[in-house]
């Protein structure tokens, strides 16, 4: 009882304990900000795959695999899986205006199915928006105004129509007025007016150059034959229909997405009759009529192939369950199709989650987080020593009070508890303050970073290194609880020795202390 009274009085009437609380607060904030940003980075890394590839990727890289429609049907029939989408993944070159060339991962997708598996539709940059984006302090983003301000020619009339073109990956050929495959470029791929990573400054130049009049790029791919040998490069001029801003630096800087039929055409993956023995001008005798005739070419019917099928599981289901469901459907698919023409390719099907694909990187990030947290927690031991020093000094200062308390009957344990309780109070106050500070910092970390960049020229977060344009700004309540508890324990730990010293004090000497 008396401990509570004295704790309250000491807390409100002394500066020293406030210093302890500030030390605890700063250390708590330091650890939690680090953990939130690094942990958020890992979390974003682990979940970002879903934005552009769904939960599981089934693939035979290179030559690809056939009968994927059957696979997709089986996957979508599984109760634990929501959708699946075919894709062709390849490397290519994008020929940009003024002779510039960019290397890119080119994905051919069925846009409608792809959007059901991923967040593709959310990743399209050119769309109507109501409010300026975070860094657009002057409201200069062309998407805020009417499209007609930029587009005076035929074709596009509104941002909605630009969005639709991106969603369908389809443009209209101006000469034939026929729909043709279009391409969406990663937002940093075009290299227009976005000199620094992460700074997606609103720009009208891209819109003016590419969007309204069917601006084009040249897509060049190097197909390979079934033996994996490169054959003649194939090129196609395609209209740019939108840009992709996924927030994943790798996608935004090195990826272009086009329609699957175009990629299948370019890479020879489109199914149909294939001549395996040309007839040429050889002549043979018809055994029935006895008349001479040209030898007919020998053809085989080949199924279309894709390299990849992206799978999305039911929301809330664990990744293990989604993988298991995918495996079940895939095994049934292989069993049913392996004896069909080119069915042998199905033996090479592999399943991988985003985390597995990036396993090495994820493991490195996890280790780095562990290391950083260890180092910062170690640094936070300064709080323990600070509390220890301040409490030692306070016990000195309050020696006479300790003697008085012992004289009026306080036990040694009661005196120790007085100081430990005091430490708990300081820990609670410090931790609460630290949590509040770190919450404010983390929630506004992107704004703070922008300000540092603008005012001080300090840009710490480079998306080309950290993959994501935005610094993670979520505080995990569990992490906050652990760090807060750590702060309280640090204060208790720091007060332990002074508390024991106070408890063991000889009351007579304490009373005579000057």
């Amino acid at each position, binding site marked *: 009882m008396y401990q509570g*009274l004295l704790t309250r009085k000491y807390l409100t009437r002394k500066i020293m304990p406030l210093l302890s609380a500030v030390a605890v607060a700063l250390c708590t904030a330091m650890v939690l900000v680090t953990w939130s940003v690094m942990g958020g980075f890992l979390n974003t890394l682990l979940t970002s795959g879903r934005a552009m590839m769904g939960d599981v990727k089934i693939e035979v890289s290179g030559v690809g695999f056939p009968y994927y429609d059957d696979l997709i049907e089986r996957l979508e029939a599984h109760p634990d899986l929501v959708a699946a989408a075919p894709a062709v993944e390849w490397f290519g070159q994008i020929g940009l205006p003024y002779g510039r060339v960019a290397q890119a991962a080119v994905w051919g997708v069925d846009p409608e199915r792809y959007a059901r598996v991923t967040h593709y539709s959310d990743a399209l940059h050119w769309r109507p928006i109501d409010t300026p984006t975070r860094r657009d302090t002057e409201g200069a983003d062309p998407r805020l105004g009417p499209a007609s301000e930029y587009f005076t020619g035929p074709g596009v009339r509104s941002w909605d129509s630009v969005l639709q073109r991106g969603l369908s990956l389809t443009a209209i050929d101006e000469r034939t007025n026929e729909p043709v495959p279009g391409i969406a470029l990663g937002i940093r791929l075009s290299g227009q007016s976005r000199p620094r990573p992460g700074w997606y400054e609103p720009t009208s130049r891209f819109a003016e150059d590419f969007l309204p009049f069917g601006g084009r790029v040249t897509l060049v791919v190097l197909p390979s034959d079934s033996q994996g040998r490169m054959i003649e490069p194939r090129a196609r001029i395609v209209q740019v229909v939108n840009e992709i801003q996924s927030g994943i630096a790798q996608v935004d800087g090195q990826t272009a997405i086009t329609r699957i039929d175009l990629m299948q055409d370019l890479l020879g993956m489109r199914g149909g009759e294939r001549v395996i023995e040309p007839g040429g001008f050889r002549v043979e005798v018809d055994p029935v009529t006895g008349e001479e005739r040209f030898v007919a070419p020998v053809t085989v019917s080949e199924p279309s192939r894709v390299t990849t099928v992206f799978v999305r599981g039911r929301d809330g289901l664990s990744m293990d369950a989604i993988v298991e469901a995918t495996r079940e459907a895939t095994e049934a698919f292989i069993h049913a199709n392996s004896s069909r023409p080119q069915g042998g390719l199905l033996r090479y099907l592999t399943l991988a989650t985003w985390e597995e694909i990036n396993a090495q990187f994820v493991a490195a990030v996890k280790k780095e987080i562990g290391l950083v947290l260890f180092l910062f927690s170690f640094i936070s031991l300064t709080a323990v020593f600070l509390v220890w020093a301040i409490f030692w000094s306070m016990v000195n200062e309050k020696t006479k009070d300790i003697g008085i308390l012992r004289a009026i009957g*306080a036990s040694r344990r009661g005196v120790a508890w007085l100081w430990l309780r005091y430490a708990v109070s300081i820990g609670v106050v410090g931790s609460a303050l630290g949590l509040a500070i770190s919450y404010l910092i983390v929630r506004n970390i992107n704004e703070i970073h922008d300000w540092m960049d603008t005012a001080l020229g300090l840009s710490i977060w480079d998306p080309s290194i950290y993959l994501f344009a935005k610094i993670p700004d979520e505080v995990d309540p569990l992490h906050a609880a652990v760090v807060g508890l750590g702060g309280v324990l640090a204060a208790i730990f720091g007060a332990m020795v002074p508390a024991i010293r106070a408890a063991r004090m000889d009351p007579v000497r304490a009373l005579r202390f000057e």
Partner: protein
Amino acid sequence: MSTLSKRDDQTPILEARDVRKTYRLGRVDVPVLKGASITAARGEWLAILGASGSGKSTMLHLLGGLDRPDASRGGKKGGEILYKGQPLRKMGARRLDRYRAADVGFVFQFYHLLPELTVMENVLIGAMVLHGRLGYRKRRDEIRARAEGLLKQVGLSERLRHRPVELSGGERQRVAVARALVNDPGVLLADEPTGNLDRASGGEVLESIASMRDEGRRTIVMVTHDASVAARADRVIELRDGLVVQKSALGGVGRAAAV
């Protein structure tokens, strides 16, 4: 005093038997008490008179359980402190804490109030220590009423919210007296209660102490170097160099002046 007649037929409430106490200063053992014996009867006001260094404060600390007599060694016994016939030496730490909280109350020369607490809180804290959280909450009204009553009795009912720094020396000592008695102990141990006060304030404090004898139920053991202060007691003993050199059954105002 009326208490004298009552006292005679009662067992001593507090007794020091052949008590020895040695302090170590650096490498030197300094014997402070060398076999001193005193007895305080129930309801008695006993004054221990002595010069500085005579061992009187040490004796008070031993009587109050704040310190222990020397351990017996080399054929020399350290002596015993007995409360109602029970040796304090045999009390465990918890019982001894309770003894200090409930059975005795201390008043010190330098008041020893807790500076962060108000007058009222300084008095209540003794009860908080004794009763603990639950016990205190259960008796809170009763304890507060007693604390207010004591402070009124020592003339401080208007200063309940003041902090010690806002009080005069005499007022502080009267708060200390109220604190010592908040748990209604049978024994009040006062160490030079007027030693730091002017004559007028000292007189007020002595009046307060006298008024707290509770119709002779409470024993007071007061240490002083001032014979005129000792004269307020029923009985005076003198300590010199760690030994009781003179016992006087005299007491009361005026008579102790002869000691």
